[in-house]
């Protein structure tokens, strides 16, 4: 066994030594960061909305779960490589475009189907909109003050950002942002539910806990949220405190569940930008040539990274013929397998691989 304690570095000198673990450090820094932002945002804690403190506790628990899950994830050998190299390559020229396509417009989901894209736009952006409004309010980074003249002042991080007319369009959007978000999420979730009940492609592989539970959670949050508005406007606030608690509870449960189920893809997805940058960057550097046919099929970097990751897992595909299987392009690798089955050197026959499309 290799020792994990480095001997070249004197202990006790770096910031990292102040913490028991990665987890402790990330947790401390994040909570401290939140507290500082809140301190500034609330003009030294003078504008805290204590009705929302349940969310605050929920957020902190969520952050704990989040770091627990993602530090474990980041320690898997392949993940570690992508995080490390992804961060290094973050400032490529194409990064803004890639990020937009991957994280904002979801172009690749469009390619999977317009219906699937629509449902995800509604859910994803509905949730993002809701979070953009809720969290600043919870931590009192943002609040409204009313002047006598029918104008609201929006205060962000302790600064007066703008004055808006109480009856005006911007004010209307601000009051109703959460309602709009709720309607988007409800529409999106209904589309997903419909697809998951009717579409045979979707039905084949789904399970209740993994695929449906997050949908019901999102639906529950959105409906209770909308009900709050309804009670306000139509029922003169009847039962509103109770409903408010139920709503709050559902948000907290969802937040805590988030890093552990299907929704864990939300914080993890930015890795897709890393992966794209990694592939683009290293393909420009140096391409690997197939040991058999000479086609360039992957970057040298990725090929050796994969071989190394497999090595960590005690998987090695070094052949007697003097190459590693990861050094063959995919068609040649398949033909090599056939040749190992048959004893005929299929991979050496200079014929393009047969049409593999069932449609002929």
């Amino acid at each position, binding site marked *: 066994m290799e020792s994990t304690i480095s001997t070249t570095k004197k202990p006790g000198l770096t910031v990292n030594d102040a913490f028991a673990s990665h987890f402790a450090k990330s947790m401390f820094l994040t909570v401290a960061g939140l507290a500082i932002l809140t301190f500034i945002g609330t003009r030294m804690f003078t504008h805290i909305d204590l009705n929302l403190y349940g969310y605050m506790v929920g957020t902190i628990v969520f952050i704990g779960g989040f770091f627990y899950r993602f530090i474990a994830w980041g320690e898997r050998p392949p993940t570690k*490589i992508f995080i490390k190299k992804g961060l290094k390559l973050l400032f490529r020229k194409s990064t803004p475009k890639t990020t937009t396509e991957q994280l904002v417009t979801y172009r*690749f989901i469009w390619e999977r189907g317009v219906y699937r894209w629509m449902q995800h736009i509604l859910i994803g952006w509905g949730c993002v909109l809701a979070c953009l409004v809720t969290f600043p309010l919870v931590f009192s980074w943002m609040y409204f003050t009313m002047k006598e003249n029918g104008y609201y002042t929006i205060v962000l991080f302790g600064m007066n950002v703008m004055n808006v007319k109480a009856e005006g369009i911007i004010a209307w959007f601000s009051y109703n942002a959460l309602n709009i978000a709720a309607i988007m999420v409800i529409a999106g979730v209904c589309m997903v539910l419909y697809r998951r009940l009717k579409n045979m492609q979707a039905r*084949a*592989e789904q399970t209740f806990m993994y695929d449906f539970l997050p949908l019901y959670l999102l639906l529950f949050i959105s409906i209770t949220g909308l009900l709050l508005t309804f009670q306000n406007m139509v029922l003169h606030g009847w039962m509103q405190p109770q409903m408010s608690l139920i709503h709050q509870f559902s948000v907290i449960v969802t937040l805590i569940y988030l890093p552990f189920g299907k929704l864990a893809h939300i914080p993890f997805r930015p890795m897709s930008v890393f*992966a794209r940058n990694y592939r683009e960057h290293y393909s420009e550097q140096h391409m690997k040539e197939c040991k058999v046919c000479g086609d360039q099929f992957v970057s040298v970097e*990725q090929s050796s990274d994969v071989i190394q990751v497999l090595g960590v897992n005690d998987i090695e595909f070094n052949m007697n013929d003097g190459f590693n299987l990861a050094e063959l392009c*995919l068609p*040649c690798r398949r033909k090599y397998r056939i040749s190992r089955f048959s004893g005929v050197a299929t991979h050496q026959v200079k014929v393009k691989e047969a049409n593999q499309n069932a449609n002929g």
Partner: protein
Amino acid sequence: MKKRLYLELENCIGCRSCLAACTQCGGHEERNRNYVYDVNPLVNRQTMPLMCLHCVNPACARSCPAQAIQIHETGAVLSALVEKCIGCQNCTIACPYGIPKFDTEQNLMYKCDLCIDRSKDGIPPMCASVCPTNTLQWLTDEEIEAKQKQFNLDNGKWVTSMPYLEGETNVRVNLPGILQGVTKLF
């Protein structure tokens, strides 16, 4: 009773029914996920299917940074979870047999999942259901053992998956006797 996919490669006549059936499995989005190869295309007409062998220690899943490739309790190595796959293509480079396919537009890997919706309930995967020549079969371990006895020619020329594969697999492969000059008795 637990059944496995069992391949008798030499039976293949190259009809590609398995590929056509694969496209029709729920969740496969009408795309096939396996291969049929000409063994010696300029010389004879022998073909062989090339399937995911559902490795016990699957290189594809070990190399995936997103944990998008899950291993089902039946041992089937599943296709990438659609919301997790980040499109790095590590799995395609890692698989010793070149099985996983990748769709660049959709930024998604897809591979044989043994028709998990069927095989988890003991129903044979689509390919084994349609194969007209019994190249692909769905058998219990006892039946496979019986096959092994039937074909064991005591000359080391047969027969079972190991040591001819790169690692232990859940799919059992029978190496072809015909091509090694052994006539097979049906």
